């Protein structure tokens, strides 16, 4: 068991100071903006909670929040099972393992604006590989700058391409940590593939899957650069996710008050959902 030791705080102090400097001061600035109104020249007026009320009632916010949940839901429901399936079908050892892992990790190490730009030129209707293939070989009309469904399919595919490997790598790490003896025991008992998965592999992957799902939730909920470069939020507002909308309000219209209030609401939602995930998935460990 862990020993009680208050001096441990000294070990945590550097981390605490660095993160607090980066987190608390900017957060206070945002809180400050969120309750005031400004007409420039550094003159501010107390506004109270008006901005929060305005944002919570605005249909524009509801719409982008809905799109955001839709996006996060879709990518989680595709990436998590797909990632597990790929990890399960990978060889456990041998020459090909590092090769597979290196190739799979590659998309995650490409800067986010390059990912967006890359998928943009990949999907161009007449000169991109994907666009050309769909339009001229399969004969499906595909133009993501015109058609909202095509735009959605493209951003989802891009995210699956970009991040499924994270789930694969983490699940795989959980799988290789299972001792062979477990499988032998299962074989002797005549366990089916499904029960091996359900009672041996899945429990062993639980910790890493928690990390993977939480990371994917947080990062997809905050996604900005890739869809912004790929579709710019269009056509119309069909792919304007929460972050894109926020930047439009903050820097496009320079409405700092509403943007700050929206940031805080946004942050609170992310926090709440992550906390729910975190408690639900670590519940058994605490007991």
């Amino acid at each position, binding site marked *: 068991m862990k020993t009680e030791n208050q001096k441990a705080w000294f070990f945590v102090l550097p981390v605490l100071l660095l993160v607090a400097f980066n987190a608390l001061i900017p957060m206070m600035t945002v809180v400050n903006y969120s309750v005031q109104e400004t007409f420039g020249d550094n003159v501010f007026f107390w506004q109270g909670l008006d901005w929060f009320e305005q944002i919570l009632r605005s249909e524009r916010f509801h719409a982008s929040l809905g799109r955001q949940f839709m996006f996060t839901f879709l990518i989680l429901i595709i990436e998590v099972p797909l990632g597990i399936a790929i990890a399960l079908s990978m060889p456990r050892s041998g020459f090909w393992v590092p090769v597979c892992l290196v190739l799979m990790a590659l998309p995650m190490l490409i800067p986010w604006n390059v990912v967006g730009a890359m998928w943009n*030129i990949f999907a161009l209707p007449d000169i991109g590989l994907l666009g050309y293939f769909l339009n001229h070989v399969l004969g499906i009309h595909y133009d993501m700058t015109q058609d909202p469904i095509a735009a959605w399919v493209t951003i989802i595919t891009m995210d699956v391409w970009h991040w499924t490997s994270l789930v694969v790598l983490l699940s795989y790490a959980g799988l290789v940590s299972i001792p062979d003896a477990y499988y032998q025991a299962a074989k002797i008992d005549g366990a089916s593939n499904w029960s091996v998965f359900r009672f041996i592999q899945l429990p062993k992957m639980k910790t890493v899957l928690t990390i993977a799902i939480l990371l994917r939730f947080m990062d997809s909920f905050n996604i900005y650069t890739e869809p912004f470069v790929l579709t710019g939020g269009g056509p119309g507002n069909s792919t304007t996710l929460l972050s894109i909308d926020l930047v439009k309000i903050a820097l496009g219209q320079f409405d700092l008050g509403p943007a700050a209030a929206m940031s805080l609401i946004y942050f609170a939602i992310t926090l709440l959902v992550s906390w729910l995930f975190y408690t639900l998935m670590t519940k058994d460990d605490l007991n």
Partner: protein
Amino acid sequence: MQKRSIVPILYILFLMLPIYWLVAMSFKTTNEILSGFSLFPQTFTLDAYRTIFTDPTWYWGYINSILYVSINTVISVAVALPAAYAFSRYRFLGDKQLFFWLLTNRMAPAAVFALPFFQLYSAVGIFDTHLAVALAHCLFNIPLAVWILEGFMGGVPKELDETAYVDGYSFPRFFVTIFIPSIKAGVGVAAFFAFMFSWVELLLAKTLTAVAAKPIAATMTKTASSAGYELGLLAAAGTLTIIPGAIVIYFVRNYIAKGFAMGRV
């Protein structure tokens, strides 16, 4: 067994297609790109790469990015090591709350913090330095490094610590010469993730720099807008941003394969 390997093969093929397209495009002339579809470069050219390697505004972008990413990786892992040790070995007032609070910083959308970060780092007087970007990226990299390292440290039996003390090791000497080497794989994985998230993040990096520490991404967006749409150049610059990442994965490939043992408790 053999039939199963079709899944990873198909998946890797899917991953490689857009990358192939980017690389192929970087060897094409602008004319060829815009005039129509071609699977392979018809008139193979290295012009785009020549431009990047001879123009200081281009290649300095790469140097700047590599500098701040390296500083960030070193800071993140260095301060995360003792903190992760504290979380993995001791109970102290507010430990659980602190751990969750650290994680919450990964949840803050960078878009929210761009403007306040700009104001903060201007006020401190390090705007447009590599250090500014490196420190700002600590916001999300330190929590992740602590999380990963704590997982690895949990796998090291406590008897190791106790034996070392009985043998008369002081804490710093034990930590540096015995403990850290025993979680080498964890340090590798943590450094890999720190490098990765700092290398790919651009919003803050762009906001916190102007000229002296401008990252490659900012150079790319600027060129894309000022020179019309030079797809070949953009593709070449993009291709070159993949290389540092590829080198880093190559170095940690064995840790990823064997290690990555978070949760191996």
